[in-house]
């Protein structure tokens, strides 16, 4: 910094202004460490994991990655915007159920269900003495409608919750509790309305997507790659939002809500946007979950899965887009291996992990990386290219934010 100034002092006024402008603009889409993160993640997900793992394990990874979409949404909404939602399972579930309804209708053709007393409707409806397809199920015969619904239904739902809460200045802990209540309510509703939703078992026995069998190994491989491509799409979208002025307003809002308000912004609208964006990310994850795993049930909607999703984000680092993905993968690997060995202890372990991360490493794995590993890499680069100009890399929007 001081070196920079000394350099500048010698220059003409005009040149000085020019240069400082260039330096302030310095907002490439990814800075160097982010680019390393992006390439590493791409290598891992596109090359290393598909080559190293058999199809069963790869499908497990695919299942874990569906939660990474939720974690990504939480980075935007909780990490940057400071809005803690403990009900992301609601949106994960809405996306998943939309997809499951379409797949179930396709699996319930008259030919497949001719032993039922009413052929052509999903099996669980037949078991519950329902003789006609309910009205709200009918549009899910259409694939384009289903795709639109996966995005729009959760977005609309989030819009209503967000508008009702944020316009009334409900925030912080109260908002978190309300989202948790909504998760509980939706679970009870799904379980209670067994004839329309499949109840506690959920919607099972899903077979084909637009005539294409999703249960084969080959299909699982293709779905994995589709998912990874979509994940990178969402990562780029999240990064785009982060780098716009909206991203900076989210950070500003997190610490000085009143100052944002008295700078002429409607804080509620920005919160609603962040919450809706997080909901849409979660819903995409949920829809993919249904495709990868082959069923959807209320056990992915309620309070426990919603809190687990927050833990993935916290462990990965709630301020880091890539951290959220790594955190999701790691916690889920640990969950799979440990919950088999110590089924009773696992939940305590998860709780302890959350407390430990919040107390000791508020920025999660990404924070540990930035504090201990990144400086070494930077030194490596610096020693290799001692005159790598442009020494200044702007502190990114959320670096070094205090823990809450």
């Amino acid at each position, binding site marked *: *910094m001081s070196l920079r*100034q000394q350099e500048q002092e010698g220059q003409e006024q005009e040149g000085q*202004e020019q240069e*400082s*402008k260039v*330096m*302030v*603009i310095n*907002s490439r889409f990814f800075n160097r460490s982010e680019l390393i993160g992006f390439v590493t993640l791409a290598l891992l997900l596109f090359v290393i994991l598909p080559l190293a793992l058999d199809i069963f394990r790869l499908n497990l990874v695919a299942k874990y990655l569906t939660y990474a979409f939720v974690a990504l949404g939480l980075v935007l909404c909780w990490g940057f915007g400071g809005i803690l939602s403990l009900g992301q399972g609601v949106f994960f579930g809405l996306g998943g159920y939309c997809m499951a309804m379409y797949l179930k209708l396709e699996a319930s053709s008259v030919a497949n269900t001719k032993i039922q007393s009413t052929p052509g409707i999903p099996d669980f409806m037949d078991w519950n003495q329902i003789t006609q397809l309910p009205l709200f199920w009918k549009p899910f015969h259409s694939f384009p409608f289903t795709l639109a619904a996966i995005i729009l239904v959760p977005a609309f739902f989030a819009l209503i919750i967000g508008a009702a809460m944020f316009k009334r200045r409900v925030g912080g802990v109260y908002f978190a509790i309300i989202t948790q209540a909504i998760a509980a309510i939706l679970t009870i509703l799904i379980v209670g309305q067994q004839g329309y939703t499949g109840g506690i078992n959920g919607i099972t026995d899903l077979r084909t997507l637009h005539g294409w069998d999703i249960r084969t190994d080959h299909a699982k491989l293709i779905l994995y790659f589709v998912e990874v491509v979509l994940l990178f799409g969402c990562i780029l979208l999240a990064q785009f*939002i982060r780098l*716009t*002025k*909206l991203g*900076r*307003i989210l*950070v*500003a809002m*997190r*610490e*000085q809500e*009143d*100052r*944002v*308000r*008295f*700078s*002429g*912004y*409607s*804080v509620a*609208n*920005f919160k*609603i*946007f962040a919450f809706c964006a997080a909901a849409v990310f979660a819903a995409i994850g949920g829809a993919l979950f249904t495709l990868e795993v082959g069923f959807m049930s209320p056990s992915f909607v309620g309070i426990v899965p919603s809190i687990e999703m927050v833990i993935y984000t916290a462990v990965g680092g709630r301020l880091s887009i890539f951290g959220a993905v790594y955190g999701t993968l790691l916690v889920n690997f640990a969950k799979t291996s440990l919950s088999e060995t110590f089924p009773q202890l696992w939940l305590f372990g998860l709780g302890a992990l959350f407390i430990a991360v919040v107390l000791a490493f508020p920025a999660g794995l990404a924070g540990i990386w930035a504090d201990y590993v990144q400086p070494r890499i930077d030194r490596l680069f610096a020693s290799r290219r001692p005159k790598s100009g442009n020494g*200044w890399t*702007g*502190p990114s*929007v*959320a*670096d*070094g*934010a205090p823990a809450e």
Partner: protein
Amino acid sequence: MLIGHQPKEFLLAVEALTVSFDGFKAVNDLSFYVEENEIRVIIGPNGAGKTTVLDLICGKTKATSGSIQFRGKELTKLRENEIVQTGVGRKFQTPSIFEDLTVFENLEISYPRGRTVFGSLAFKRDAVVMDRVEEVAEMIFLKDRLRASAAELSHGQKQWLEIGMLLIQNPDLLMLDEPVAGMSVSERVKTAELLNRIIKDRSVLVIEHDMKFVEDIAHKVTVLHQGQILSEGTMDRVKNDPKVIEVYLGH
């Protein structure tokens, strides 16, 4: 032919303003008028309701009754961000800036463009914005700190940054709550210089305890006591008002 003179157009007209918190009237039937380009200082003992008056004007607190007209618009019915958009800027007593952002980003957020959700998504850092940010940064003595994190600034610099954030909004009415409180002597001098420069071409409403500072800048002084106006007029008049001496200046 005009008979008499036409009623003067006030920039800000506060009339019969009352706010009560659980029966306690923090501001009680208050009326005052601020003209274009006037610098009005509000003084008064602690608890007189000075900050509450600013809170009421900027919408932070809702009035129980009464009206606040700004350029003919009724502010009591607007939300905070709408009041800002009509041209009222407010600086808080404790510096409220965005510490996680750089000085540049702090000023940029305050730049009055792209204030809607989608407007801010499409917002571009173009030459107009950059020039304005640099211009304001120079005015508030922070030109060489543009890329520093706002958290690294000293207390005085934070106060300047917040003043800069108001300045970049270019409000017609600027409200400052104790702008020199907690500043070192040299910072005070610089702040006075800064304020004297930025109060041109706009009306300013200042709360301040520093009498020397008040005398320097005030066109008119309003003395508040227990939510009501005790005295109003030029500094000389107010200083020699026996009521004012009794409750405030006498101490």
